[in-house]
């Protein structure tokens, strides 16, 4: 993807995910889910949803799909399953997290929850 084609956003925000997760856990937060979501401009929003004293709080940042982000699984063991799901269903890259929790390489669709571009109009196919 051409990085200049997407709107400006904080390109360093994802680097603090471990630090922010650690702070949240030390403050008594419990990681509930990691939600990935694709924007129309091609950026991905990552949402780390926490329960803190019976209230929902979250950590959010935008990334480009080809970036690699840090894993928080060593801070919170339950996060590994959540991260593997994101890797499988969105084809994102998380350091040290292998794909394959739900999908089988070579047999399953690749990144099935990513938005697909509309097919080219009929007659527009060359060759």
């Amino acid at each position: 993807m051409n990085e200049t084609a997407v709107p400006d956003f904080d390109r360093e925000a994802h680097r603090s995910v471990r630090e922010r997760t650690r702070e949240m856990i030390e403050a008594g937060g419990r990681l509930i889910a990691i939600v990935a979501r694709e924007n129309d401009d091609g950026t991905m929003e990552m949402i780390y949803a926490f329960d803190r004293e019976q209230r929902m709080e979250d950590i959010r940042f935008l990334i480009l799909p080809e970036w690699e982000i840090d894993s928080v699984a060593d801070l919170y063991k339950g996060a590994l399953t959540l991260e593997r799901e994101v890797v499988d269903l969105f084809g994102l890259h998380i350091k040290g997290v292998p794909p394959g929790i739900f999908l089988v390489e070579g047999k399953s669709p690749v990144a099935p929850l990513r938005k697909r571009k509309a097919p080219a109009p009929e007659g527009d196919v060359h060759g």
Partner: protein
Amino acid sequence: MGRATTIPFGPQHAAFLEPLNVKLTLDEETVVGAVLNQGYNHRGMEYALSLDYRKSQYLVERVCGICSFHHSSAYCQGMESLYGIEVPVRAKLIRTIMMECQRLTSHLLALGHIAEAVGYENLFMQCFREREHVMMLVNRVSGNRVHYSMNVIGGVKRDLSPEAVKDVQATIRDLRPRLEELRRVFSRDSTLSKRTRGVGKLSRQAATEWGNVGPVSRASGIPRDIRQDGFAAYSMVEFKPVVREEGDSYARMMVRMDECLQAADIIEECLPLLEDGPVAVQVKGHPKGETFSRVEAPRGELFYYIRAKGTLGLERIKLRTPALMNVASLLAMLPGCQLADVPTITVSVDPCICCTDR
């Protein structure tokens, strides 16, 4: 250590109702390592649910046949918050009653399953006999045994008639002594005790680190129950989370047994609170915005993230099921146990693979 042996446990195994594979590394009869392989039941539910939010209020029940009503409650609750509407009190009470009925059917299934895993076939049958009374009750009330199809965005589409209220009262009244008898067997039977006490221990610290929820976390001493947040009509009834400290298979079994009696209490508390009134409000237009929604399903906290864009399709719907977190923590419970205890331990976390894989 002798020569390590690796054996597959599942995906098709007598102890499992659904496909799950645990690759076990053994030193003679002792488990020294375990790797989970899941995904056999992945159906792409998150994609399917995002296609049409109106159809999804029914499709969402098909994520799981054991906690179907909890799925639709979490979904409808989330959609209602996007619409900014308050559901009528009567609908909230009906949802609470039906959720507790489903907790009964789910926990009695799990208890029967544990009894079967330890080789106690007769107790398995007794659990399923009592479960059948609740299954027939929900069939009479909703018209369905598994997918009740009662929830709609804005409330419920089927009211409880005065006869249905009496039916619920009578069924729960008759069920209670039989649940107490089951509790006596589960808590005192020496065979069950030997097969479950001290087996598959999960410390409070480990349960916190693995993000366990529901009866599995409460059996490890974590007093967390999302019902205390007061969704549906839970703020109108009094209850305390059932918590035990042992963290073993016995504790997980007994938490579920005690929650069956607690479910009967909650249902009986809700029934007198039912007053005449509407059971649903109409919603207009397509929803827009983002919300988190949570309910306490039988296996624990069920989390939904919904982002709507003002069209029939949802921009994103994400489900984090309780089984997803609980199944992963088997990796903390299995090492050190005997091979013969693996079925008991895996079943004690009540693994719902339909929910886990979606």
